[in-house]
C-alpha cells in the first residue's frame, strides 16, 4: 500500500510538472505568436475559393444588370442604389450608359483588413467627368449648323444676341445621346480594394462607398450604400454640373453641390483656398471670390472689423463655403468667432467618434476634424460623457432622455430647432418630432441662450455647464439660412464669463438663435485642422464628438 501511495504521489507530481510546463509553454507561445503573426502568411486551404467566387458572382450579375442577384452577394442585404435612375433626362441616359459598359477583372491573392479579407479588382466604367468639352464641342457645332441653315437670325438667336435656349437644350440632348450611345472614349479602369467578411456561414462583399465610386467612374463619391436613391441623386448632381460646364456662356445652368447625408467624411478642402493674415482688409479678395455664395447674406464680418490687434485672422473660400475666424474683445471678454456661410445645408454636419454612437472612444477635436476633412469645426456636446439628453445621429434616434436638457435639433434645411427640456414627454413624442421636422441630427447640452432674437436663458437651475459661473464658453448660433456663427469665449479674470453675459453680447450683435455647448477645456474652435482659440490649460481634451462645416466641392475640382 505504501508503494501504491508513493507511486500515486510520483504520478501526481509528474502530472503537476507536465501541466505547469504546458501552462508556461502555452503562454509563451501566445506571446510569441503575437509578435510574429504579421510575418505569417494567411493560410487558405486548397479548394477554398468561396471569397473570390462571391466577387465574381457579384460583378457578373451587375454586368447582366441583375441587381437582385448582385445585392444577394452583399453583407447585411444592402443595396448600392444602382438600380435607381436619376430623375433628370440627361442624367438618366448617362446613368444607363454607365451601367451598360461595366466590366471587371479580379486580381490574384487576398489581403487582410479588419475582420475580413480583401481582394483587388479592376473595374472598367465610363468616366464622364472630362466629357464637358466633348459635349460643348458637339453643341457648338450643332448651333453653328443651325445658324447657317437659318434664314433669319431670330430663328436661332434671342433678343440679347445669344442662342435660343430651346435650341441649345435640343443640341445638348443630341450630344448626350451621342455620348451615351458610344461611351468607349470615356472608359476608365479603376483599381479597387473589395472587402469581404464572413457572416452567417458564408462570405459576402462588404458594401462600401468606394464600390459605388468605381462603378460610376468617379462621379458619385461618399454615398454610403443602403440609402435608397442616394447614388442616383448624387449622379444627377454630377450630370447637372457637367451640363453647366458644357453650356457655360450659352445657357446658365447653376452648379449644384451637396454632400450625401450618410457620408462618413467630406471631400478634402482645397488647401490653397485657406488664407490667413493679421489685417482684416486682406479678406476682401476672399469675400469678392465668394460674392455669389454671399449674395443676400448679412455678414457680421467685414474687412473693417475691429479685431484683436496682432491676432491672426483665418479664412477659407470656395464656391460652396465661406468661413472666417477672428478674435475680438467685447465687454472685457475675449470672443473667438467663426462665421460660416454654406451653399447647401448638407455641409453642416455632426461627427461622433468613429462615425458610430456605439463607439466609446475619445479623440481630440482636431483629430476628428482631420478625419472628416472639416473646413471649420466646433467641439460638440460631449454626448458620451453623460447619459443625458436626446441624441439623433444620421436621422437615427440613439438616446431619448428628454427631461434634463434643452435640445437643439438640426433639420435637413440646416435650421436649428430648439426644444426645451421636458417638452417631449416620451420616446414616441421624440420620434414623432424627428419625423415631423425632418431632423438629421441633434445636440444635447444647452441651455437655449437666444431664440427669436431674445434671451431664452432658463430661470431655474440647469444641470450642466455651470451657466452662472465664470467658465470658458462654447456657443452655436444661426444667423440666417445656411449662415452660422461659432463662438468660444475664454474664461477671464477681468469679467466673469457667465452665460448671461455672453448672451448679452450676442444679442447686441443681433444674433437671433444661440445654443450653449460643452465649455471649459472641451471648448475648441478649429479651422484647417488647427485650434483657433486658446483652450483651457493650453491642451486639447479628448472627447466624443464635433460639429463641422465642409466643402461640397468634389476632390480634384
Amino acid at each position, binding site marked *: 500500500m505504501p508503494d501504491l501511495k508513493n507511486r500515486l504521489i510520483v504520478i*501526481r*507530481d509528474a*502530472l*503537476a*510538472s*507536465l*501541466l*505547469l510546463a*504546458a*501552462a*508556461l509553454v*502555452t*503562454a509563451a*507561445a*501566445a*506571446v510569441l*505568436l*503575437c509578435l510574429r*503573426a*504579421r510575418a*505569417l502568411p*494567411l*493560410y*487558405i*486551404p486548397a*479548394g*477554398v475559393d*468561396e*471569397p473570390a467566387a462571391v466577387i465574381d458572382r457579384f460583378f457578373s450579375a451587375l454586368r447582366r444588370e441583375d441587381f437582385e442577384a448582385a445585392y444577394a452577394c452583399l453583407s447585411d442585404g444592402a443595396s448600392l442604389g444602382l438600380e435607381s435612375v436619376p430623375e433628370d433626362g440627361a442624367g438618366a441616359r448617362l446613368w444607363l450608359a454607365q451601367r451598360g459598359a461595366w466590366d471587371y477583372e479580379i486580381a490574384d491573392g487576398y489581403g*487582410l483588413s*479588419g*475582420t*475580413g*479579407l480583401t481582394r483587388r479588382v479592376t473595374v472598367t466604367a465610363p468616366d464622364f467627368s472630362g466629357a464637358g468639352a466633348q459635349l460643348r464641342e458637339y453643341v457648338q457645332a450643332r448651333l453653328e449648323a443651325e445658324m447657317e441653315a437659318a434664314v433669319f437670325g431670330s430663328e436661332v438667336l434671342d433678343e440679347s444676341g445669344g442662342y435660343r435656349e430651346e435650341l441649345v437644350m435640343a443640341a445638348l440632348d443630341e450630344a448626350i445621346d451621342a455620348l451615351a450611345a458610344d461611351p468607349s472614349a470615356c472608359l476608365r479602369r479603376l483599381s479597387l480594394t473589395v472587402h469581404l467578411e*464572413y457572416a452567417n*456561414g458564408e462570405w459576402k462583399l462588404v458594401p462600401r462607398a468606394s464600390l459605388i465610386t468605381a462603378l460610376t467612374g468617379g462621379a458619385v463619391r461618399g454615398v454610403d450604400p443602403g440609402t435608397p436613391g442616394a447614388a442616383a441623386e448624387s449622379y444627377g448632381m454630377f450630370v447637372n454640373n457637367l451640363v453647366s460646364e458644357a453650356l457655360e456662356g450659352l445657357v446658365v445652368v447653376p452648379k449644384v453641390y451637396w454632400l450625401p447625408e450618410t457620408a*462618413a*467624411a467630406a471631400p478634402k478642402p482645397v488647401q490653397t483656398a485657406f488664407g490667413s493674415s493679421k489685417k482684416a482688409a486682406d479678406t476682401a479678395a476672399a469675400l469678392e471670390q465668394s460674392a455669389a455664395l454671399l449674395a443676400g447674406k448679412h455678414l457680421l464680418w467685414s474687412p473693417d472689423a475691429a479685431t484683436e490687434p496682432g491676432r491672426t485672422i483665418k479664412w477659407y473660400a470656395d464656391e460652396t463655403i465661406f468661413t472666417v475666424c477672428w478674435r475680438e474683445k467685447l465687454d472685457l471678454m475675449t470672443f473667438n468667432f467663426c462665421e460660416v456661410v454654406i451653399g447647401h445645408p448638407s455641409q453642416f454636419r455632426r461627427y461622433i467618434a*468613429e*462615425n458610430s*454612437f*456605439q463607439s*466609446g*472612444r*475619445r*479623440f*481630440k477635436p482636431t*483629430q476628428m476634424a*482631420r*478625419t472628416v476633412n472639416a473646413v471649420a469645426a466646433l467641439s460638440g456636446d*460631449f454626448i458620451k*460623457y*453623460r*447619459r443625458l439628453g436626446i441624441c439623433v445621429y444620421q436621422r437615427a434616434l440613439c438616446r431619448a432622455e428628454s427631461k434634463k436638457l434643452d435640445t437643439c435639433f438640426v433639420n435637413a434645411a440646416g435650421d436649428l430647432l430648439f426644444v426645451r427640456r421636458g417638452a417631449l414627454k416620451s420616446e414616441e413624442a421624440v420620434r414623432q418630432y424627428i419625423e415631423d421636422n425632418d431632423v438629421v441630427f441633434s445636440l444635447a447640452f444647452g441651455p437655449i441662450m437666444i431664440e427669436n432674437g431674445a434671451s431664452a436663458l432658463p430661470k431655474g437651475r440647469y444641470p450642466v455647464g455651470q451657466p452662472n459661473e465664470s467658465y470658458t464658453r462654447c456657443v452655436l448660433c444661426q444667423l440666417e439660412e445656411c449662415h452660422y456663427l461659432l463662438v468660444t469665449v475664454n474664461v477671464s479674470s477681468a469679467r466673469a464669463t457667465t452665460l448671461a453675459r455672453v448672451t448679452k453680447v450676442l444679442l447686441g450683435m443681433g444674433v437671433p438663435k444661440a445654443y450653449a455647448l460643452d465649455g471649459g477645456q472641451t471648448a475648441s474652435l478649429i479651422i484647417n485642422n488647427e485650434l483657433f482659440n486658446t483652450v483651457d*490649460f*493650453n*491642451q*486639447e*481634451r*479628448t472627447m466624443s464628438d464635433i460639429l463641422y462645416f465642409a466643402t461640397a466641392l468634389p476632390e480634384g475640382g
Partner: protein
Amino acid sequence: MERIAFLLAGTGRPVFWRDIILCMGVAAAVFLLLALRLADRQPVFPALLLIPAAGAASLYAGRALHWYCCPESYGSFRAAVGDLAAGGLSLIGVIAGTLAVCLLFRAVRLIRDLPALLDELAAAGSLGIAAGRMCELFGNGDRGKMIFSRAALHRLPFAAAAVNPVSGEAEWRFASFCFQSMAAGAIFLLLMLRRLRRAARREEDPGGDFWLFLALYSLSEILLDSTRYDALFLRSNGFVSLEQIAGLAAAVLMMAAFSVPVLRRGGAGRLCGACWTLFAGGFGLVGYMEYYVQRHGEAYVFAYSLMAAGLLSAFIGLWTVRRCARRLPAGAPAEG
C-alpha cells in the same frame, strides 16, 4: 488590422488570431490552476467542476457589466447576454464572476480550503491575463490616448497601430494592452517566487497570494486604465473609469480588512498610522494626477510617473499593514 489567421478547409470559415490568442491565455490559466492544485495536494475534481462553472459565470458577468457601461452598444440587455460572440467583456466582471463561483463552491462545501484555491487562481489568472491581453494586438481597442509620431516608437511594447475606421489611416497609439500584459506577467512571476520561497522555508500564508494579486492588479490597473482611449465608464460619470473605481474600492476594502484585526488587538500604532497616511496620501496624489493628466494630456510622462509613485506609496502602506496584522499573535497589542 490583420485578424484572420486561416480559413478552415471545406467551409472556408475564418479563424481569427484574437480568438486563438485568447483561447491560449485561458488554456494557460487552466493548465496552471490544475498544476497548482496537484502540487498543493488539493482535490482536483472540484477544480474540474469550477472551470466550466466559473467560465460561464465570468463570461456572463463580464458581458453584463460591459452592457451596463455601454448600453448603446447593444439593442437591449437580452441582446447583450443572448449573443456572447458579438460585443465586449469587462475583465472586472470576469474576475467578479469567477470569485462568485468560488464563494458558491465554498458555501456548498465543494471546496474546503478557499484561501488555497484563491491563491492558485491568483497565479493562474495572472498568467492567463498576461497571455490573453496580447490578443488586443489584433484589434483597435485597449490602446492609449497618446499618439506617437516618432517612428522609433512604432513597435511593441511602446505603440500599436489603430486603424481609423473612417479615414482608414493608421495611428500609432500607446500599447496599453502590452503594458497590462507585462504587469500581469510580473505579478505572475512574483507569485511563483513567493510559492517557491514559502516551500523552501516551509511557511504558510493562506490567501496571501490572492491578496497580493488583488492589490498589485488593482493598483496597476488604476494607472494603465487611465491611459486608454476606450476605457469603460459608469453611467453616472465620465471622469474616472470603472477599472479605476474598482481598483480604488478593492484597495480600500483590503486596507479595511487588514486594519480591523490591528485595531481590535490594541489600536493603531505609529507604524500603522504612518501606513494609513502613506495609503491615503498615495491615493490623494493619484487622484490629483488623474485630474492633471486629463487637463494636460501631453504631460503624460510626468503625470503617470507621479501617479505610479502614488500607487507605490499606497501599496507600501497597504502591504505593511497586512504584515503587521499577520505578525500579531491573537490578543497581542499592535506594533509601534
